[in-house]
């Protein structure tokens, strides 16, 4: 339920590719209304919180370990914030702002 503040959510564009879309209702692009504040920390929502939120609220597939392992995005998934590797942006600590695009890319091995 919405928090009693003026702007309780921000819109985030989330995209899954490389096969991850199959875990999210076979849908590549999602538009997410994310709570502005992470209730567990009372801090502004970060990418780390988004990952947790997606796992809880958007992921239809029950095999959560194909997306999150030991509380973090599983190895073999690149996280991109506005078309740049999240390592350039602060990884999980990046504070999301309205309209940000977050892309999850499962690395492929086929050839």
């Amino acid at each position, binding site marked *: *339920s*919405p928090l009693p503040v003026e*702007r*309780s*959510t*921000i*819109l985030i*564009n989330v995209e899954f590719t490389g096969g991850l879309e199959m875990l999210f*209702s*076979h*849908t*590549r*692009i*999602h*538009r*997410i*209304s*994310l*709570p502005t504040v992470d209730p567990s920390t009372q801090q502004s929502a970060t990418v780390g919180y988004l990952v947790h*939120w997606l796992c809880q*609220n*958007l992921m*239809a597939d029950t095999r959560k370990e194909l997306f999150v392992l030991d509380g973090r995005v599983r190895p073999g998934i690149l996280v991109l914030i506005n078309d740049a590797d999240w390592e350039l942006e602060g990884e999980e600590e990046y504070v999301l702002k*309205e*309209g940000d695009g977050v892309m999850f890319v499962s690395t492929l091995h086929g050839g």
Partner: protein
Amino acid sequence: EQPGRWELELEEYRRYGRQLILPEMGLQGQLRLKDAKICIVGAGGLGCPAAAYLAGAGVGTIGLVDGDTVEISNLHRQVLHSTAKVGMPKVDSVSEYITALNPNVKVITHLSHLSPTTALDTLHPYTLILDCTDSPQSRYLISDACVLLHKPLVSASALRTDGQLMILNHPALPAGNPLGGPCYRCIFPKPPPPTSVVSCGEGGVLGSVVGVMGVLQALEAIKLVVAGLQADGSSGRETRQPEASGAGVQTKAREGEGEGGPGVETPQPDAQTQCPPQPELLIFSAMASPPFRSIRLRSRRAACAACSAVASVTPESLKSGSLDYAQFCGVLDPVNLL
């Protein structure tokens, strides 16, 4: 398509197994490929890779239109030919390759360049056309013929380190129907001045650049066929249902404000379930970063000479030879160019 009319042999299940298991393909998609008749106009730098991947995927009938013979200067980019085939008609060289790769494919060779008087008869039997030619006048002619015949057209080109790709006349609705896809004349109503036209022979081209564009042509053709092309050339997109959870169409702009509590908005459907398709131009610049750009194109032009209600291009004007594409494009020496 008559259910049960087409069956796959055991050899075909083995051969196509790795693509059959894709949800985007399935047995229905494979049968549609087998039933499809695709004409490749131009057996050169674009036509070679396009033919390879259409044949590999199991397109039932492939037509090849080209009047040229293999030259040694072709071989850096026209990689289905070989040194021993220099002097052989290109359509025969590609036909040999296709049969060796996949004997299930029926190949029809047309050893001549397309001309206004022959274009309609030549292209009529096919489901879908690939423009793999290399001059403005052939591009106008092929587009006009596709509009008159209600065939979708996958058009690509390349020069130096650049490439371009468009899907034209898709859906291939009759001239005057504004819901049909734009034709080549809608995008380029006037031909370029001949002094501005540079061929691969004059300007050069990197083989892998034209190769990428040719493979992408095959891919777009396969996507169109697998999505379903009706007898009238229009797209049978309704046969691919959107996923239950992705059935809605997103109407808000990306930049819109969020309102209300946390939640998931109706997601965008995947590209192949959108209707009508947004016409696009894919631009490839091998030396630029990013190398690929997608551009939104206009819809049909209300005054288009080919696809509008006031079209002047008709089967009669084409067959009678009254449309002089070489003169239209200002070519002084049209021999061997069309």
